[in-house]
């Protein structure tokens, strides 16, 4: 089968020139004339590719204008297509006609970078708020982040349904539970949801801008704070991108420890989610039991890695602390205890018919919709898409320890819960295998500085799904741009879709079964 790059080179009616200075070599980057940016998307879509990310970079310090980038994925291959935009006319053809995820990516690019997607139907800001000046583009180099922005009048107009018996329910941004902020606007007829519109951005922290003022080492700590519940996967993705740029060979021992932490993070979060899904249908017993199991894992994390969520445990070049025999025994012992209790809870989950009545056929996202919307991670796997970076784009030790990917076809709340259950089981198995095959050695290797004007890319399967980092160095080898793509940036839109035709009181259940990150989306 031809690679995406070969297909694009053969079929695009314009020159496709490979870009040099991009790492790793397995992820090709090519540039096309900006008029053909959307045409490239069309060809790649026909070839079966999905849009994984789209972003812009201010490259004025590198002596160019803006660059727009689109990252495509098909099976095990990634391809990044870029186009250069001049400073005085930073517009490019929108990809929204081909790919749904481009819809929010491009609004965000427009809001924060000031590049204009031609043909985009929705001019409303995204992530940026309407009371910011329209010409304030925080990600541009000319923008001074230390100055307070003046507030201006602005209105965000939501889609509205009209007619007899239609009513609107605004929910949030501050919710009743202790969760992150986000606004949901429902149009409902009786109890039936006829439209849901999400409004996110309330936890925009300017992380991508902040990256640009940090050193490469400090930035690893920032990456670990993009989404607190996914700190291992985010720092890992950042470190892998940086290591690719600097040609750093991470010691095997460190690779294995990283994977153990990644799987522990997955288990802990899935446990919490399984309980929370049950709690939303008033089956509180499950919540308290899974939270108890999660808590024991977090305490072990604290004992072994020094932090409950293993924050800052992945560092550029390796890990902050290795795993010795004593701690391996602790982990193995705990795994058996957790597994034993977990299986008993799964039996309760599986055999309680009132629970099953609520989760089955609620919030269905069909395989076709999931593909069209470009879902990733466990949401995609619950809707029949076999996608997992650990299998498709394996990094050590997953290239040596094969991962079984659970895929369900129903696409409902039950499937998303069950994918989590199967992933916990698989992660328990993986950790055992990793511990038994873990090589001895150094815990980290020195990391150099990236050369000027190079880029690094990494994709890591966090517990929500594929996390992508794309780093670009400036003329002095400093951070020029750090693009963060949490799986939430893709999957939030799936929630809007899956609740259609469901009833209002089932929304929290659907939402919990997705459990996307607000912070990761809003960066």
């Amino acid at each position, binding site marked *: 089968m031809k690679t995406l790059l070969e297909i694009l080179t053969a079929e695009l009616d314009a020159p496709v020139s490979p870009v040099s200075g991009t790492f790793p070599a397995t992820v090709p980057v090519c540039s096309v004339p900006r008029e053909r940016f959307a045409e490239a998307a069309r060809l790649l879509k026909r070839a079966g590719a999905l849009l994984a990310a789209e972003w812009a970079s201010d490259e004025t310090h590198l002596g160019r204008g803006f660059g727009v980038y689109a990252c495509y994925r098909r099976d095990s291959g990634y391809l990044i297509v870029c186009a250069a935009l001049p400073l005085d006319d930073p517009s490019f053809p929108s990809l929204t006609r081909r790919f749904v995820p481009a819809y929010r990516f491009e609004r965000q690019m427009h809001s924060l970078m000031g590049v204009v997607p031609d043909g985009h139907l929705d001019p409303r800001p995204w992530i940026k708020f309407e009371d910011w000046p329209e010409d304030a583009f925080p990600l541009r180099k000319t923008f001074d982040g230390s100055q307070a922005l003046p507030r201006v009048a602005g209105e965000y107009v939501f889609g509205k349904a009209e007619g007899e018996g239609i*009513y*609107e*329910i*605004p*929910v949030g941004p501050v919710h*009743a*539970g202790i969760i992150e902020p986000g606004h949901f606007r429902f149009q409902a007829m009786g*109890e039936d949801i006829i439209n849901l519109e999400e409004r996110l951005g309330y936890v925009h922290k300017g992380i991508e801008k902040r990256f640009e003022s940090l050193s490469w080492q400090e930035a690893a700590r920032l990456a670990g704070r993009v989404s607190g519940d996914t700190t291992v996967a985010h720092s890992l993705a950042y470190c892998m991108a940086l290591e690719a740029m600097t040609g750093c060979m991470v010691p095997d021992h460190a690779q294995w420890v990283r994977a153990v932490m990644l799987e522990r993070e997955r288990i802990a979060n899935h446990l919490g989610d399984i309980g929370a899904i*049950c709690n*939303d*249908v*008033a*089956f*509180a*017993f499950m919540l*308290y*039991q899974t939270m*108890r199991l999660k808590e024991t894992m977090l305490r072990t994390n604290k004992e072994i890695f020094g932090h409950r969520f293993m924050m800052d445990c992945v560092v550029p070049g390796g890990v902050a602390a290795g795993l010795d025999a004593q701690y391996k025994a602790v982990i193995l012992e705990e795994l058996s205890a957790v597994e034993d209790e977990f299986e008993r809870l799964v039996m309760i989950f599986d055999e*309680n018919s*009132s*629970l099953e*009545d*609520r989760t089955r056929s*609620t919030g269905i996202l069909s395989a076709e919709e999931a593909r069209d919307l470009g879902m990733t991670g466990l949401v995609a796997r619950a809707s029949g898409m076999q996608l997992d970076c650990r299998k498709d784009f394996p990094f050590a030790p997953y290239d040596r320890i094969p991962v079984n990917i659970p895929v369900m076809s129903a696409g409902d709340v039950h499937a998303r819960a069950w994918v989590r259950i199967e992933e916990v089981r698989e992660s328990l198995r993986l950790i055992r295998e990793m511990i038994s095959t873990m090589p001895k050695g150094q815990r980290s290797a020195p990391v150099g500085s990236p050369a000027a004007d190079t880029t690094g890319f990494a994709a890591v399967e966090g517990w929500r799904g594929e996390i992508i980092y794309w780093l670009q160095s400036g003329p002095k080898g400093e951070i020029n741009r750090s693009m963060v793509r949490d799986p939430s940036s893709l999957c939030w839109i799936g929630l809007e879709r899956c609740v259609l035709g469901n*009833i*209002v*009181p*089932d*929304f*929290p259940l659907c939402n919990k079964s997705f459990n996307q990150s607000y912070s990761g989306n809003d960066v």
Partner: protein
Amino acid sequence: MSFYYLFVELLQVVLLLALAPVFLGWVRMVKCWAQGRTSAGLFQPYRDLAKLFAKEVLLAENASWIFRFTPYLVFGTAVLAGAIVPIITVDLPLSPSADVIVIIGLFAIARFFTALAGMDIGTAFGGMGSSREMMIASLAEPAMLMAIFTVSLANKSTSLSQIVQVICTTGASIKPSLAFALLAFVLIALAETGRVPVDNPATHLELTMIHEAMILEYSGRHLALIEWASAMKLFLFVSIGIAAFAPWGIALANEMLSLPLALLFLVLKFAVAGVGIVLIETGLAKMRIFRVPEFLGAAFMLATLGMLSFFILD
């Protein structure tokens, strides 16, 4: 003798006011144990009420008199119902003046005003809760009447005091009609008092709420009164259940001296009832809201079967 009547009437009301939060605390306590947690103790509902009474009332700008009046009305009807239901004795002066249909009517008035108050302040959640509550009420109230009529037929009276007197003096007999009516009553009581599997009193998810959605805008003493009244409603439904199906131990007419014994029986029966509620609530998930009509339909069917079997078998 008239002093005695006044005394028991007051005693009943005081017991209701004092024990309703404790019973709620008991249910929560057993629930915690069933989930493997440490509980906050029997008296946590008291602490909650004390906290709410101490807090300021925040009123929506467009709240009308209905919104301000409803908490007092809901509280008042619950207290009044407590003066009619034989909790520890049948010697209630108010009892001859009002039968069980009136009690259901009192609850209906409270519900009607709560639903109005939910819509009064004009939030989306309030209206949503009111519409759901009225849907459930329209199905629960007829079923409740059906179940009570079955018991009334078996005991030849619609007055709860009279029913208790008849059951306790004629001795126990197992009647199929009463078994059907009891089952129906349990299902309806779960719906009426907003327990799992119909509603979830512990949820913070506004979109899933029924009763809680209507009272979401209440605060301070208003909320305290409503919460207290909800606890009393739960207490009263258990009391009605006890009076209609297992009244043994309640002091009968002119049995002044058996009052302490009646109190003991009361505590025991409520302890058991609390465990029963917890078993149901822990073992079941909340049902999808459009399953509630089926659930209450089943209750209505059971009550009807009870009535039919009374005519055929008893």
